[in-house]
Each structure stands twice: as C-alpha cells, then as structure tokens.
C-alpha cells in the first residue's frame, strides 16, 4: 500500500489522463490517433471524434466526478457508506423534476440555465427537504431508518414518474424512459456548458469544507464541540450536493451507485482525510464513469447499453456486500 497521499493522487491523475485520452478512440468506430491529427485523412472519423466522442467523454468525466463527491459528502455527513444521494432519494427527486419538465414541455431557461436543470434542481430540493426534516425532527434518527425513508422517497417519486409516463404520449414516454436509464449518447458541448457551473460551484464549496467534513466524520457532537456551526455547514453541504446531483441528472439521467462505490473505494485507498479524499473522488469518479461509458459502447456493439444499466449492475451487488459487511455495526465509513 502506498502511504504517501500525494503520490496516490498523482498516480490516479495519470491513470485518469490515460483513460481520457484513450476512451474517445474506442467505440463502434475505432479511431486512430493518426486520423485525428492528420487533416488530410478521413473527415468522418475526425468529426466523430471531435463532435461526438470528445464531448461525450468529457461529460461522462465531470458527471462521474460530481456524483462521486456528492456521494462522499452524504456518506460523511451521515457516517455511512450506504447513505448517498441516490439511495436517499435525491436522485429520484431530480429525476421526477426532469421528467415533469419533459411532459410539460415548456421550453424556457432562467439566466441561461436550461429548464430541465431547474426542474431537476427543484425535484432534488424536495427530496433533500424531506430528508432534512426527518433528520431534524427525530434526533438520533438511525441511518437504517434514514435509508428506509430513502426507499420510500424513491418509491414515491418513481410512481410519480410512472404517472407522468402514463399520461404522456408515446414519444414523450419513450424519451423519459430512455433518459431514466442514464446515458451520454445524445450530449453535446452545450450540455457541458449547461451543467459545468453547477458542478464547479458545488465542488468548490465541498473542497473548501473538507476540514469540516473531517470533523463531521467524527460525529456531530464532537464536530460541534470543536467549533463547527453544524446546521450552517450541513445546509451549505446539502445545497452544494443538490446543485451537483441535479445538474448531472438533468442531462444524463439518474445514474446510480457511482456515488456509493467510488467514494467507498477511494476511502479504502487514500484514507478518510477529506483534504485528499475529495480530489481522489474527482479523479477516480470521472475516470470510472468514462470507463463504464466506454464499456457501454463496446460490450455488445453496435448496440449501446445505457450506462446507468452498467453502473446499477455493478452497484447492486456492491450495495449488498456493504450491507453484509456492516450488519453488526451501523457505521460503514
């Protein structure tokens, strides 16, 4: 095991760069470096590379980073690896908001932010408020109860989404369903510009609060006694997380389990010091989702498997493994 945390970060950055460089070349159409660099060769391949593959890989990377640090933040706040925006129902809230937008179909934007993102954010906020109120009114709410509440919130919003699909016409219904599976097929550069501000603001906040996250991981009473203004810090963290999760989900759909697997594995690799952990999550989360997306393109090519299906196939067993591992103790972090 490498002890030096900075070395770990550098190694993972190099790995991530390699993934970023290679992933756009792989797919239904294999592209060689040569055909991108040489302007006289094969225009179609270059177009595929620059217009389709590169934005796709970039958005997969920033989505993965955002989902990973959101997951990390929730895990640390609730001191449990099973508590993530996805399992606690924030993602399904955002999904509900975005699906509602597809159905209502009013094209609008606020200050340049796409309507779907705004709706997703509001949906995420509803879930967050429910979780927040639950954790407030019942002091000492166990994480187990919290997760059950998350299951309930998930069911609740899933049935809303089903209802929206039911009253939608065929094309709307299909586009909602396809989007719910999560994927990067139809994204372009504009989507990146759309969600990048959300993710930059959210992750900057979390990077600045990494010492507070370290203290929260010790338990709330200790954090308060060390001088953390608990409610204020938690509110800011909830806000930052909803920003990022809803930004990502509004564009690429509710991709699950990345925010559970990546932070948990990152903790095992680099330890619990959030000053390093947050950066490993950014690097590793991004690279992980790019890899999953690449898999989704090549596994049964020419058919593309939605990337959400892949992360869920990996994440389901992982969740159960965590549950078994933690069965004698409520804390998994």
């Amino acid at each position, binding site marked *: 095991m490498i002890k030096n945390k900075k070395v770990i970060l550098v190694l993972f950055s190099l790995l991530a760069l390699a993934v970023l460089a290679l992933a756009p070349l792989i797919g239904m159409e294999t592209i060689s470096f040569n055909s991108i660099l040489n302007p006289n060769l094969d225009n179609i391949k270059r177009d595929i590379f620059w217009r389709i593959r590169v934005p796709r890989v970039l958005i997969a990377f920033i989505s993965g980073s955002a989902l990973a640090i959101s997951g990390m933040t929730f895990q640390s706040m609730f001191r449990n690896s099973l508590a993530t925006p996805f399992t606690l129902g924030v993602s399904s809230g955002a999904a509900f908001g975005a699906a509602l937008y597809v159905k209502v179909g009013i094209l609008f934007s606020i200050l340049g932010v796409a309507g779907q993102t705004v709706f997703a954010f509001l949906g995420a906020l509803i879930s967050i408020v429910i979780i927040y109120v639950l954790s407030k009114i019942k002091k000492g709410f166990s994480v187990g109860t919290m997760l059950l509440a998350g299951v309930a919130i998930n069911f609740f919003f899933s049935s809303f989404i089903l209802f929206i699909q039911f009253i939608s016409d065929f094309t709307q219904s299909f586009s909602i369903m396809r989007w719910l599976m999560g994927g990067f097929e139809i994204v372009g550069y504009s989507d990146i510009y759309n969600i990048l501000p959300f993710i930059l603001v959210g992750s900057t906040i979390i990077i600045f609060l990494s*010492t507070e996250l370290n*203290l929260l991981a010790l338990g709330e*009473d200790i954090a308060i006694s*060390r*001088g953390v203004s608990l409610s204020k810090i938690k509110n800011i963290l909830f806000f930052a997380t909803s920003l990022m999760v809803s930004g990502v989900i509004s564009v690429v759909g509710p991709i699950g389990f990345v925010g559970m697997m990546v932070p948990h594995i990152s903790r095992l690799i680099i330890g619990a010091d959030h000053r390093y952990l947050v950066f490993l999550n950014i690097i590793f989360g991004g690279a992980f989702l790019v890899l999953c997306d690449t898999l989704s393109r090549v596994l049964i090519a020419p058919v593309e498997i939605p990337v959400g299906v892949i992360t869920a196939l990996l994440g389901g067993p992982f969740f159960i493994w965590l549950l078994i591992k933690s069965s004698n103790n409520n804390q998994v972090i």
Partner: protein
Amino acid sequence: MNEILFDIKNLSFSFDKKKVLNSLSLNITKADFLSIIGPNGGGKTTLVKCLIRIYKPPIGTILLNNIPLEKISQKELAKQISYVPQISENNFPFTAKEFLMLARYPHLSRFTSISANDKKAVTEAFDITNTNHLSDRHMNTLSGGEKQMIFIAAALAQGGDVIILDEPATFLDPKHEHDIYKILRKIHLQKKKTIVSVTHNINSAILYSDKIAILKNGEIDFYGNSDQVTKDGILEKTYDKKFTFIKHPSCNKSIIVPEVIQ
C-alpha cells in the same frame, strides 16, 4: 471569592415532552474541579451538552464569563471549552495525531495552513498525557483506555481553559481509570484549567474534585465542597439507598465502601 465561569439560570429542557432539566440553576467557578453526580436519567449529560451548545435550551440562560452563550460563535466557544464525550464504539477514521490536529479547528482560518502554534499545542498535549507513543496509531486500534487518553489530549490541544468530560473513566479498568484522574488532577493543578466531570463514581468525585453538584430529576439537589457530600444523609436521599463510609487511610476524606449482601 473566585470568579464565576458559567452562570446557569432557570434552565429547562425537554425531550419529546419529557422534562429533563427543570428550571435548573448552578454557578460553576473558574479553575474549579467540579464533579456532577446523580442518578441515571437525572439530566447530567443533557446539562453538559447545553454548556457547549450541542443542545440549545429554549428556556433559561447560560452566561459564560457574563456573556450569554448564544452570543458567542461556535468557534469562539470551542476556543474556550473542550469536550470529552462518553466513550463510544464509534469509528474514528484517523490516526491519533490527525485526531489532535483536527482539534485545532477553532484556531484555523480557511486560507492558512497549520501553524507552528498548532503543532506546538499538539506536541504539548501528547507530552502532558504521556501518549507520544500512540501518535501514529490509528484511533480504531487503540484500547478503550488509550482512546480516552487521546480524547483528553485532543481536549488539551484544542487549547481552552475549560474541559468538560462525560463519564471519563466509566468502563475503564482500575489502572486506566487511575491514569485518567491523575492526568486530570495534573491539568487542573498545573494548568489551572476548569474541569467539569460527569461521573457515576462517587469516590473519585470525593477524592479528586474540589466541588460536587448532585443533579436529580433535572434539578440541583446539592452543591458544595466534595467532602461535604458524605454528610447529613445527602447521598442517602439522592440515591434512596443506605451508604457506609470509612475514612480513607491516606487522607482525611470519607469514602464509600460497598455494602455487604447477606
């Protein structure tokens, strides 16, 4: 007359309509070693949690050096008061040294890194508690006694003049219990720190602290010098039980001996 550190007036606090603190008033004097004893469920933990604003009681006032507690920022409060919670089986994913560094949080500002002052405070805390050999150990690998000592070291590293402890030695073996109290006495006498310790161990309270407060049914039943508590049937009334006292062979204080059961 010593200066008053905490001036607690008419404090009431309820959990789910169950009154835990009932119009409680108490003064805690600067540089005292105060033990708070009393039956289970009497409100001891709740009271100390109010002192560091883990709980914010809706009724009553707490003044710290004559300033209302709610007027002091959490960070400012943490500079003055450290807290050692009840021993828990919680996971602490850090080494002892990292744990002590985190206790310097109230002194850090967001854009500066750890200063020489912070490092010095941490080294000193390890020295005073004789825990230098534990500094690189992971918290989760420490024994209960070692972990508790690191918590006290962290409270020292935090740098305040007041340390509040909740059951500092419960569940510890006699040696570790003795070590903990020895260190607390040392901190109290040499560093002139105010110690507020919640405990069930009446003998340690009598032997090691200057003052004792008895908390029962959310009210202060007794407050006075620690050797007074064995007189006038005070303990009998508090715990509704007969007590037998003997003089400690090496000091003048009366302590409790366990009853013989026939």
